[in-house]
């Protein structure tokens, strides 16, 4: 240790640590006073901690420089060929080493050999000899213009010439710094700080423009920030100099506008149109996009020149705030942890969180950036200083000058140029972006799959392109039309590319699922799974994930045993992977609990599975908040089936709380949990709250999920039951019929959900005293259940119970008894003896018995039902009371007769 430190031992160090941490919590002004007190006269300790508190904040840059410099030097030695110029003379300069190379030649670090003054310079050496004397002369003139650029943020061009061999070279100020993007991330600069540096760069570019010099190749790697935090632009105007000296072009463009880095190319460069100051404005827009959001405006890596040209010339950049939101939404709902880390890194490098960063970018900054990135040069900011001015206005919270492209403008432009239907409906744009982003993020780290992702994106884009807006109804193409077109093209066009075909089928299958279109969803997911089984074999996580997707759809289609089998084998695959439990396992367990619950399987196992799922999500932390809410709601439903209403309500409220905190009031899950809560309140007999909650749920569902959504049907059924219970029979019948029609449309006429709706309708018809209609409705329900379930399901018991009750009312007690005995067997199999549902069935059976005069058998059953339901006001209680009254009436008559 050196003299700056004090004698140190672990005890003393731990004291230093406490003092330092404590002092860091305080305002700068309060620290000294605190240490004075806390060090109790140990002046040496106090001074040392103060030193630490004051220690340089430029440490990161210092250390990064030292490490980078050594890394460059150390590894450069593995490539001695790059250094053959070492020691050679270029003009009066002696080459020290190669520091870079690129399209325009090699860059060397060099030093003046005459030692007049110690000065390091960067020398760019061209690749070709110059022969034509006119060119030499012209170059010299232009070089002179560049050399006159004198700005603190522009690396100076000192000198230039041609070597003995006739190769042109340029001598430039050597900047020892790090790339601007790396610099900003390293220092965790905030959005405002990043805007500050960016404005400095704008001022330098504007200065050059006033001197009639265009940079032509502005990008992060051409802007270095020195250790003092000063940004410096390199290579001003060099692109043009080198170009006019006859350098090779990379073939992407015509003559005239040549040297550019493909990822940073502007539309006019791609099209070979004249390069103007607006070209630099566009490049600054790309730079600002990446600096602020952490993502590149266009992901063009590895594209072919024609794909690339199309993206640059036609595809509008997604607003940075939306981009961030999509990346984040995908990452937190997807299963790929590296995607989450990418988003996390991007926001933590900006010293903030996703929501806040999104809010910072939304509005002004989105508009400013997209304005700079407009395809037509004349529609961008009229100058770089206008761009910088708008940023100043934004920073002072004043209205900015730029305006977003109007909807009319965009639509007009796209139709005029026959550019795709991509932008004809906002929802479709968002969906395409989601696919593309999701796929590219998902596969970011894996080269082969990255190529797949790109092809997938391209394919999706082609589908969108193929839609001719002129043929679409009005200006709008529905998502369904596009999905249908996509699904059929996948089958016809991609037969030889199973991995792409399966990825696409999976994607579109999941989209259908989220739209509530379960039949096409199941078909596509089934095909995707078959292809993936062929590609990866049975025991691969990709296959397990595909099984989970398919199972989720099958559950909605009531194909429970197949779903359960898929989920069991997928879970086995995940478990065999070893290691601590992952989000995939938790999701799988949730699906399994669902199928066990809804499919009428083992409820205890369902409960164990969902408990493990919740435990895993809790351990994985806040990024899985939404999935934790889903799992809690699943557990709530299971507990509700088991009759533990208090725990159910508690879990439901927890789930709602989680959703509101992490997603706000307008999330689809809100609609689901409201419905669940309404049902719960109804079950508890709180009809007034139930009516209120369910009315709210129906309105929210129509608004958030639309008129054709599955959930709307479910909520309508529940609302109908509440109407029924409060005596509003007309409204009850109206909403139940709407629900039945909706279920028949979305799930098919033979789905158990249709049958369930028929049970509640049958009950209503029973209470409306239309017994014939009630019997028909309930018998139809029964035949649906018998076809759908391969064992006795509780829905069957419900239908049998109500049918028995109707037959009792119709005076056909003997027929009723047979049905009700079977219903009671089914009830007692899954429920505790004194469960409400068991009691309800028992009531009807006892009623059938007493109607036939079997009073000895009926009495204990009725007493039991009455006891069970005494505390539970509602239709079941009313029916039990009535049955008991009838028992006394009939048995009394019979007593009197004897």
């Amino acid at each position, binding site marked *: 240790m050196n003299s700056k430190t004090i004698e140190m031992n672990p005890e003393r160090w731990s004291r*230093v640590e406490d003092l330092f941490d404590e002092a860091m919590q305080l305002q700068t002004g309060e620290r000294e006073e605190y240490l004075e007190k806390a060090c109790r006269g140990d002046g040496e300790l106090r001074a040392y901690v103060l030193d630490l508190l004051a220690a340089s904040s430029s440490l990161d840059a210092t*250390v990064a420089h030292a*490490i980078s410099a050594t890394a460059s030097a*150390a590894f450069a030695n593995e490539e001695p060929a790059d250094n053959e110029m070492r020691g050679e003379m270029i003009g009066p300069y002696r080459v*020290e080493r190669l520091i870079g190379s690129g399209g325009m030649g090699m860059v060397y670090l060099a030093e003046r050999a005459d030692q007049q003054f110690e000065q390091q310079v960067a020398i760019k050496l061209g690749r070709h000899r110059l022969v034509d004397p006119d060119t030499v002369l012209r170059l010299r003139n232009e070089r002179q213009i560049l050399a006159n650029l004198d700005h603190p943020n522009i690396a100076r061009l000192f000198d230039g010439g041609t070597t003995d061999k006739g190769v042109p070279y340029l001598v430039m100020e050597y900047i020892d710094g790090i790339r601007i993007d790396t610099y900003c991330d390293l220092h965790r600069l905030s959005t405002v700080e990043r805007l500050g540096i960016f404005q400095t760069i704008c001022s330098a570019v504007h200065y050059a423009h006033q001197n009639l010099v265009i940079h032509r190749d502005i990008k992060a790697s051409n802007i270095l920030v020195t250790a003092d935090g000063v940004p410096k632009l390199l290579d001003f105007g060099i692109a043009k100099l080198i170009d006019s000296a006859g350098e090779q072009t990379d073939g992407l463009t015509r003559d005239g506008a040549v040297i550019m880095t493909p990822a940073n190319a502007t539309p006019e460069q791609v099209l070979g149109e004249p390069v103007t100051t607006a070209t630099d404005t566009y490049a600054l827009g790309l730079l600002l996009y990446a600096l602020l959001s952490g993502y590149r405006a266009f992901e063009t890596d590895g594209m072919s020149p024609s794909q690339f040209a199309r993206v640059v010339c036609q595809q509008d950049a997604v607003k940075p705030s939306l981009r961030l939101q999509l990346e984040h939404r995908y990452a937190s709902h997807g299963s790929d942890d590296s995607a989450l880390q990418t988003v996390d890194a991007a926001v933590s490098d900006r010293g903030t969180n996703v929501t806040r960063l999104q809010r910072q970018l939304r509005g002004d900054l989105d508009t400013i950036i997209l304005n700079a990135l407009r395809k037509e040069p004349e529609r961008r900011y009229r100058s770089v200083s206008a761009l910088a001015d708008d940023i100043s206005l934004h920073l002072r919270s004043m209205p900015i000058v730029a305006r977003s492209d109007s909807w009319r403008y965009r639509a007009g432009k796209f139709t005029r140029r026959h550019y795709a239907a991509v932008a004809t409906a906002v929802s479709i744009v968002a969906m395409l972006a989601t696919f593309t982003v999701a796929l590219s993020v998902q596969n970011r780290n894996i080269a082969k799959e990255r190529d797949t992702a790109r092809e997938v994106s391209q394919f999706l884009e082609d589908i969108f392109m193929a839609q001719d807006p002129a043929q679409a109804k009005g200006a709008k193409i529905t998502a369904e039309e596009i999905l249908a077109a996509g699904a059929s093209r996948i089958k016809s066009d991609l037969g030889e590319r199973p991995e792409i075909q399966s990825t696409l089928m999976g994607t579109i299958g999941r989209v259908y699922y989220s739209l509530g279109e379960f039949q096409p969803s199941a078909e596509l997911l089934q095909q995707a799974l078959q292809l993936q089984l062929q590609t990866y074999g049975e025991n691969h996580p990709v296959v397990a994930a595909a099984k989970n997707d398919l199972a989720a759809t099958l559950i909605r289609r009531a194909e429970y045993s197949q779903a359960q089998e898929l989920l069991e084998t997928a879970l086995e695959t995940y478990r065999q992977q070893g*290691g*601590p439990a*992952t989000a995939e396992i938790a999701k799988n367990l949730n699906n399994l609990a669902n199928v066990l619950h809804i499919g009428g399987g083992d409820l205890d196992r369902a409960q164990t599975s969902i408990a493990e799922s919740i435990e895993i999500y809790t351990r994985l932390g806040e990024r899985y908040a939404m999935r934790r809410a889903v799992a809690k709601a699943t557990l709530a439903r299971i507990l509700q089936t088991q009759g533990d209403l208090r725990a159910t309500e508690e879990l439901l409220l927890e789930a709602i709380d989680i959703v509101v905190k992490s997603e706000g009031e307008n999330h689809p899950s809100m609609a689901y949990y409201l419905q669940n809560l309404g049902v719960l309140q109804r079950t508890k007999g709180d009809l007034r709250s139930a009516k209120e909650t369910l009315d709210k749920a129906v309105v929210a569902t129509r608004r958030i999920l639309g008129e054709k959504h599955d959930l709307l049907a479910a909520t309508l059924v529940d609302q109908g039951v509440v109407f029924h219970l409060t005596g509003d029979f007309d409204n009850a019948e109206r909403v139940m019929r709407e629900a039945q029609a909706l279920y028949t449309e979305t799930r098919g006429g033979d789905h158990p959900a249709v049958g369930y709706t028929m049970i509640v309708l049958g009950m209503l018809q029973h209470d409306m005293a239309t017994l014939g209609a009630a019997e028909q409705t309930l018998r139809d329900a029964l035949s649906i259940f018998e076809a759908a379930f391969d064992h006795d399901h509780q829905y069957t018991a419900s239908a049998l119970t109500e049918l028995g009750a109707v037959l009792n009312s119709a005076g056909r007690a003997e027929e009723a008894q047979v049905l009700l005995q079977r219903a009671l067997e089914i009830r007692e199999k899954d429920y505790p003896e004194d469960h409400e549902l068991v009691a309800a069935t028992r009531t009807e059976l006892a009623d059938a018995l007493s109607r036939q005069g079997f009073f000895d058998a009926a009495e204990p059953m009725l007493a039991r039902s009455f006891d069970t339901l005494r505390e539970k006001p509602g239709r079941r209680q009313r029916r039990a009371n009535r049955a008991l009254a009838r028992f006394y009436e009939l048995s009394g008559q019979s007593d009197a007769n004897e």
Partner: protein
Amino acid sequence: MTPAPTVTTLLRQWRSGDAEALDQLTPMIYGDLRRIAARHLRSERPEHTLQATALVNEAFVQLVDAEMQIEDRAHFLAVAARMMRHILTDYGRARRSLKRGSGVAPVTLEEDRVPNFPSTDVVDIDEALQALSSVDERKADILVLHYFGGMTYDEIAEALNISAATVDRNLRLAKAWLANELKDD
């Protein structure tokens, strides 16, 4: 014939207490770190500086099954970061001895200049880290993971099995300490 174990497998074995797995793992990571770095310089990239952190991250992508758990990823990055420290410090030492003319280093080594920070090089950083290690090993390790591995706070937290908040707190003091140590007065 059993196939050669993958980096992922070795990493898991090492984490579950098999010390030999690390011996097998080391040459794989070390060799590839160097190979990747060399390729980086060969490829046409205009950046003047080469980020050690980029190398470590790329090594991860190249060597490791992408299905790896977060915990495993963090441990891999940690191993690579510590290795990167040794590779660079060894090189820095050799370069220093060349400067002094002791002549033991291979002649292909050349001088590197870091003009703005004349008094700080990797060897200084390494020595400071050793000093810190003797009183507080964990903070020294956190610095290595942060600077040589480019690891995020979350990754460091995962690798060392502590909370991200602890990483943040420790790193603040550790950085202050290092800055104080490297200060050139």
